[in-house]
């Protein structure tokens, strides 16, 4: 029968060596670049929003849009339904705008220190970018500083620029789509983002164009006390295709930093968007001090018939993750997919999953979620599969597996299944991979050490998700997990 949601959790006691090492691994990307930032004073009110809008030289309608969102937000309260324990956030103590002082006109003018930062992170700018064949719109704090491969993209009509630039140069496009997937009053953090968003990426793939390269943005939170409020928008017109990569890493910080991003995707007839994320923000120290608060609203609207949207995420960072990349399957025969690996340790908390809203006829969705929790962390999957009354022949298959490493962590599963159409059908059955005595015994009997065996099995546990990542990201994701397991072996 149909609409499958299955979860299996099974753990093994003999992992203590692995656990301790995994927990003790240091955060590799923790460093602060010393650049003067030109920030607005902390606080949030209409004047601040007008100031942000003015600095970004935005048109009047944009300012009004932000203010409308702000007034909405004032009436809202922070959601508390997630299985997270969130220390109170003082939104008045945050500075809502920070930009590097020197405004570069080309890559050559970019602050060398900044480039050094990207270098440490392995962002392929300059020649490396060309060699890697990746166009990078690197966002440093809140303003885009370098964009490559614009020309190559422009030739086929692809627009890939910062959100601020898009508002200035393609106002009609932005105005047409902004807030149509995630309305200003959608939720507390989305409303906040709409009011104060600083920058982000804007991608437009015209009709019938297959984007010639994978697009990538590296975000990096840098200045202390600045929330990062990214706004990303990707529009794939009829028959278009794009694969978008997003990677995140932030320097060490003692105070919690808020990140409330909004990502809106629009997929028209026969178009396809692949959105991949590797998230490795600072998770806080062993005691849970510091670390990023990651409250993200990501949603894609499969507006056209036969459209397809794939979310793939590897989440290893952040102190708190609150994130549910969703698909609205509006077009007939549209397809939504969600592949996720979420790893938590120390005192990290993650409440993440997806929403698949089946509205069109013969829509299909697939959810594969792998949770690994260690230390004293809490890792929850929360997913909604909704089949509307008119979604004739909808199909969904959900599989979420959890792996518990250690005695003090938690792994939770909260699926919501709401079905109003009696023709919803599915034939696929869930499969699980877990560290069982048999698996361990098999590896050991082949002469593989205990730690190596665990690393091998965990890799296998996540493979189904890694396979969905573009090659460059798959390498990084695998490495991220390896780093945590490497220590375990040695």
């Amino acid at each position: 029968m149909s609409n499958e949601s299955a979860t299996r959790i099974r753990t093994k006691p003999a992992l203590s060596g692995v656990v301790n090492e995994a927990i003790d691994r240091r955060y590799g990307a923790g460093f602060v670049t010393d650049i003067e930032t030109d920030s607005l004073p902390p606080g949030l009110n209409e004047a601040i929003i007008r100031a942000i809008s003015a600095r970004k030289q935005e048109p009047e309608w944009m300012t009004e849009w932000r203010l409308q969102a702000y007034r909405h937000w004032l009436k809202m309260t922070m959601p508390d339904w997630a299985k997270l324990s969130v220390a109170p956030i003082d939104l008045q103590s945050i500075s809502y705008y920070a930009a590097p002082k020197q405004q570069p006109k080309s890559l050559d003018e970019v602050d060398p220190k900044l480039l050094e930062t990207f270098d440490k992170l392995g962002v392929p700018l300059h020649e490396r970018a060309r060699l890697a064949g990746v166009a990078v719109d690197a966002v440093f704090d809140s303003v885009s500083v370098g964009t490559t491969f614009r020309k190559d993209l422009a030739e086929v009509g692809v627009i890939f620029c910062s959100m601020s630039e898009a508002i200035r140069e393609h106002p009609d496009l932005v105005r047409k789509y902004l807030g149509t997937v995630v309305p200003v009053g959608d939720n507390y953090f989305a409303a906040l983002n709409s009011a104060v968003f600083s920058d982000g990426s804007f991608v437009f793939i015209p009709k019938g164009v297959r984007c010639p390269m994978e697009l990538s943005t590296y975000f990096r939170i840098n200045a202390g006390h600045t929330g990062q409020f990214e706004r990303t928008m990707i529009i794939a017109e009829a028959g278009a295709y794009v694969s978008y990569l997003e990677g995140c890493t932030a320097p060490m910080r003692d105070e919690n930093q808020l990140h409330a991003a909004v990502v809106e995707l629009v997929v028209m007839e026969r178009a396809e968007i692949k959105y991949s994320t590797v998230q490795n923000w600072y998770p806080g120290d062993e005691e849970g001090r510091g670390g990023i608060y990651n409250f993200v609203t990501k949603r894609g609207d499969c507006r056209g018939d036969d459209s397809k949207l794939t979310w793939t995420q590897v989440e290893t960072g952040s102190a708190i993750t609150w994130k549910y990349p969703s698909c609205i399957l509006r077009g007939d025969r549209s397809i939504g997919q969600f592949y996720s690996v979420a790893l938590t340790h120390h005192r990290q908390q993650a409440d993440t999953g997806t929403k698949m809203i089946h509205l069109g006829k013969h829509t299909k969705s697939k959810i594969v979620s792998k949770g690994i929790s260690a230390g004293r962390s809490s890792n929850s999957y929360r997913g909604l599969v909704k089949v509307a009354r008119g979604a004739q022949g909808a199909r969904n298959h959900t599989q979420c597996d959890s792996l518990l490493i250690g005695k003090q962590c938690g792994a939770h599963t909260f699926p919501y299944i709401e079905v109003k159409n009696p023709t919803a059908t599915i034939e696929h059955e869930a499969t699980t991979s877990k560290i069982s005595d048999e698996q361990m015994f098999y590896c050991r009997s082949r002469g593989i050490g205990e730690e190596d065996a665990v690393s091998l099995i965990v890799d296998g546990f996540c493979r189904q998700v890694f396979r969905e990542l573009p090659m460059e990201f798959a390498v990084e994701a695998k490495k991220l997990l390896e780093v945590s397991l490497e220590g375990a072996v040695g």
Partner: protein
Amino acid sequence: MSACVPLLDEVLKQAAVGQPYFDGAESAWLAQLRQGERAVLAREGLPDRHNEAWKYTSLRALAQQRFIIGDSEAGQRPVPETELHLPGVDGPRIVFVHGVFRADLSSLQEMPAGLEVTTLGQVLSTGAASLRSWMERPIADGAAAFERMNLVMATDGVSLRVKAGFHIEAPVHLLYLGIDTDAKLAWHTRAHIELQAGAELSLVEHYAGSSQSEQFATVVSEIRMHEDARLQLTQIQHATEAVTLVRHEHFHLAPRAHVGMHTIELGGALVRHEIETLLEGEGAIFDTCGLFAPQARQHVDIRLDIRHQARDTRSSATWRGIADQRGHGVFHGGIVIERGADGADARLHNKNLLLSDRAEIDTQPVLEIYADEVQAAHGATVGQINEQALFYLRSRGLPLAEARRLLMVAFCREILDGIFPQSLQEYLAERLIKHLPLSMQG
């Protein structure tokens, strides 16, 4: 609390006046407990759909209704003899009409050794301390408004105890009846069931009646299982479709205690059934199977909350739902494995058939795991009758309606098969077929 909630207003008004509960055996602690809970109820009101535990069940229509609380004639209302029997359930019979114990309808003459059946009023008048500690068990936040309402308003109830080491062979029949009356009645009753160490009991809890007028009832059952006790519990609910029924069962399982439970939910207009189980002792086992089948405009909301608190505890839950016409089925299967409950094994499966484009199924299997070295699995499906199976049967000459009926009963077979006593299995299969609007689809 919102300004106008007639349902609650009536309760609060009556609770404030104070009336003789439990045969007038109201003691000071109970009066105090009730006043305290009344105040909480007045403050919190009824849960709305923003409350996660009530996300899929709206109380808005119910809250606007006005019921007469308690039936002064419940002690005399005639009940046809046929209402009192279930095939094969031939042990002692305990009958409540509108929440009031009816000695004349009950059959308690030939009590098996080791079994004690009394009303709560009688227990209270003897000042039993255990009852007090049970009733003073803290009630959760706003989601448990009906549990609280029951504590404040219950007028009677049964106390059922099996002494240590006794095995009660013949199944005990506990019958709750709602009879047709001119008035819209509300009634609230409780059951306190205790199986002492090594005791065994087979109990059939049965909701039935003929009420065509609207009724609102709450029943709260406290079940305490001591070491090595075994309870075989069969619940049959076929109240009329004029009845709103809210039930809450609270199980405590000591080491190696075992509860095997089968639940068939057929009747009721709005049904909410909460099963809360604490596996407190090492090696305790809780098995639950159930079937709910909302048709017409029925709304059935099943809520399991199973907490593994000790080592090597086991639980399994197998539930089936069939929603047809404008029926709305809600299933929440919550399993929590607490820290230290190593070696726990929990399984939960919920399969549903959605047969009409006006029907709805919402299912939510939840796992919360805080221990390692555990095994937990859950699964949920929503689908329809397998077209190929249907085709196969029709190709063998079966009419469509017959083929559907066969497949539907097969779908429920896993639940029906385990029911005790066996004589109930065929009886319930027939009732189920009658309940399902199969002919309309033939």
